[in-house]
């Protein structure tokens, strides 16, 4: 009879840990490749990036 309750507490644990792991990565300082890339995007396509080389797929 406690099986459902037990399962849900296990599931909560899974969620809590997933969340913690997710936050850990999400709050890491950004690698410089991303800040550099943003700078690059900002300076290159001042207007509206529409004319930068197209994305070949989609």
């Amino acid at each position, binding site marked *: 009879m406690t099986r459902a309750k037990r399962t849900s507490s296990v599931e909560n*644990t899974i*969620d809590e840990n*997933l969340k913690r792991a997710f936050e850990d990565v*999400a709050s890491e300082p950004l690698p410089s490749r991303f800040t550099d890339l943003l700078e690059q995007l900002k300076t290159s396509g001042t207007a509206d990036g529409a004319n930068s080389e197209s994305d070949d797929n989609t």
Partner: protein
Amino acid sequence: MSDPRDELVEHLGPMRAFAMSLTRNSALADDMVQDALVKAWTNIDKFQPGTNMRAWLFTILRNTYYSHHRKARREVSDTDGELAASLAKKPDHDGRLQMRDFHVAFDKLPDEQREALVLVGAGGFSYEEAAETCGVAVGTIKSRVNRARARLVELMHLDEDQVLETTDAVTAGIVSANKSVA
């Protein structure tokens, strides 16, 4: 009105976390985030201000994954032996076995279940947002999340007694899975 592109930087952290949960490899994940960032930047006119930017970005990210990176992930996954070896080198610890168990179990989930679980269970997405991000019905997301949880429990043979000692192992397992390949 501010340029929505200025907000992109705020989402990069969560994008990296989502990408890592999909690829389980930090190098691949960051390649994927980079592709998605460029795509988002150049297609910012397709973003509707006032809507959920994170959901929009995650949609781009997962499209990137499914169109380019999923195959690469499979190839990298072949280095599992390396990972197991690095875990085995860790000092003896109660959580060791479970860490590996969780890692193995998480990897066994189908992509669709894993992403649903991460979005809803960790990313703070509502079922509706996750459904939109994945392009499926809300009911489909619910059932994927439920199946993912049930499968993890089953694969890890979890029961209540083990929950406490598993806690740290699970966290470390997800994180170290990424780090060890970097």
